[in-house]
């Protein structure tokens, strides 16, 4: 017992606000395109494993929902026309929380859920990286309970579903049933490239489609996986508490 107390005292507090730690220089965040340097060779379009870079009206467009942040396009670009910035705050809202004039629903939902949010996790075909980052939010460094946010054991106790993975055929039913068991008002967050785009493994016989084709999604947090700070940003954005 003394040993335990000694260790705890020595350690001190390690909990921090999510934006406090510096982003490492090698971090691959939001993609930035430099139009001046781009020579229109389209190598990045060909190499992108999820077709997150596409040619629209002869202009490159980047779909961060599908981006794996793998660095392949940056690696293959001879002209340094692309680079990963350090920005990880790229979550965005849709559905009930869509930012439009007169969206009173969003305000009402936030007034009910805003200060205390209970989350149920639903893995519908993830590689477990997003799941582990969700677990990391409970570690003493991030400790999301400091924001009044916590995970709960049952969808019946939940205000939000955090969904990870492409929807597999074997889990489609489980996702539908979990949503049905969650009381309203409720929010659905798609966590990571699989859940946001459904394109990580292309179309296969074993998948039922992206999450948004099965249940309505309100918050998209891209990343492969999104770092814990990006998840907290997404949660606070949804609750309008940034």
């Amino acid at each position, binding site marked *: 017992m003394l040993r*335990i107390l000694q260790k705890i005292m020595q350690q001190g507090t390690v909990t921090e606000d999510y934006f406090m730690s510096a982003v490492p220089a*090698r971090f691959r965040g939001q993609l930035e395109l430099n139009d001046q340097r781009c020579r229109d060779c389209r190598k990045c379009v060909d190499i992108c494993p999820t077709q997150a870079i596409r040619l629209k009206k002869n202009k490159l467009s980047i779909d961060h929902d599908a981006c794996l942040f793998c660095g392949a396009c940056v690696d293959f670009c001879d002209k340094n026309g692309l680079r990963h910035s350090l920005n990880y705050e790229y979550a965005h809202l849709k559905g009930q929380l869509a930012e439009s004039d007169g969206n009173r629903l969003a305000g009402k939902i936030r007034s009910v859920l805003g200060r205390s949010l209970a989350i149920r996790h639903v893995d519908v075909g993830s590689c477990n990286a997003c799941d582990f980052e969700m677990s990391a939010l409970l570690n003493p460094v991030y400790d999301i309970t400091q924001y009044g946010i916590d995970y709960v054991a049952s969808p019946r106790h939940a205000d939000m579903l955090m969904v990870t993975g492409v929807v597999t055929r*074997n889990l489609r039913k489980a996702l539908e049933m979990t949503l049905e068991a969650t009381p309203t008002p409720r929010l659905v967050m798609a966590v990571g490239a699989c859940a946001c785009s459904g394109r990580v*493994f292309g179309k296969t016989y074993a998948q039922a489609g992206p999450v948004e084709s099965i249940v309505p999604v309100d918050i998209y947090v891209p990343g492969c996986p999104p770092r814990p700070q990006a998840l907290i940003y997404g949660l606070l954005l949804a609750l309008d508490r940034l």
Partner: protein
Amino acid sequence: MMKVKDTPVAGLRAAANAVSKSGRLPLRAMFANDERSLNGNYVLYLLFEAEDGGFSLLTSRIDARQPLEFPSLTTLLPAAAWYEREIHDLFGLKPTGHPDLQPLVLHEPWPADCFPLRKDFTAAPEVGGSISVKHPVAVHGEGVFEVPVGPIHAGIIEPGHFRFSQAGENVIRLDPTLFYTHRGIEKSLEGLPVERAIYRIERTCGVCSVSHALSFSQAAEAIAGTEVPLRAQYLRVLLAELERLYNHIGDVGNICAGVGFAVGASQAARQKETLMRFNEELTGNRFLRGMIVPGGVTTDIGGELIRHASSLINALLPDFKDVVEIMESNAGFIDRCRQTGVLPRQVAADLAVVGPAARASGIDADFRRDHPYAVYDQLEFKVPVRRHGDVEDRLWLRVSEVRESCELIRQALAFLASQKGECRTELTFPAAGGSSFGWSESARGANIHWLMLDANRRIYRYAIRSASYPNWPAVALAAPGNIIPDFPLINKSFELCYACLDR
């Protein structure tokens, strides 16, 4: 060092018995391939350990014009049970005489003659969402009841369905239904060039990203016949050991969490976070993704990162030792772990279990030492082995492996600091294509991949036998005899990936 032997399908049992020396040499992988367009056959591939320390590959062709079946090996080699069910699900090749031929991978009722891993399979049929996997009542008797758990669990855990047959608190039998996260990754890789496949293979599993990327890259490099630069090999060792380190420390914490020992769980979670942050500093990704590619590694590391890595390891070891001592001195904690979830040595051997689970049950096997890859044969490390096969031994085994990993990291850093060199090379694949195995020892054990390229140098077939594959059936056998509240603890002590298994 791979001896290849082909056998007529009728003689498969006798041949497997001979190659495995009556089941003494473990079956490491078994998969099928649709080679009808090449030679008119379906082909079964069986990889065994060989007596001389290498591997034996047993192949057997099933003529597409003959009945699509082969004699089941399960009664001879229990390790074959799930492989054969998977082959039956995905290729429609029937293992005759299989004692338990239920669907394994595909849960929905699929139309007859629709097998997704055959080459003539095009689009998946629309099938209703009703689940066809049956859960037969396994145990009968007065007062016996069932506890169904999952696939959505109470914690942040991957999906699986567990059905416990109970007499009071005691587990009599456990029937797991897995493969919920089956994404069809192997099929999705067919037709892709090697340089694009890496991104999907790396994402088979989050916490085995390095191991999967490494197994694949080594298979591709073997086909190309290219030696990877020495510096890249050392960098790969560094990445592989960092992956083992954060996994093992995370799992030590999870075992504490499994018994509600909050101090241990919290301290280990803090240490794991430090490691994850360093991973991001090193590779730009907290799961070390995007670094290993066929031909080497994408980026080198310089003096500053090497120094940071050294100081990180130097600080981690005493910190981790404190936590271990706290655990050791807590009688309540030890009491929960000791003699809980025992995996007997013979069961581990029969199921060809790998990794820490095997080593904690007295099986001295580690692919880093037994089938060295990268530069493991030039590094010094011990392979700890324990013999009780309970939660406690699996825990202390990981603790010992943490120390060994730190030693390996120090050796790799010493090399990286003292020498310079290239860390990537171009691969040229032979015009005729080819095939090869690639393997690595992940934090969960041997992770074996098989790559076959066609004449266009694109992937014809890719098979992933992750470390979790042979170990999952062992979890089901370690649970009976324990009380149901100990199951999460037993499960965490094996620390298997669902995503790795399901693919």
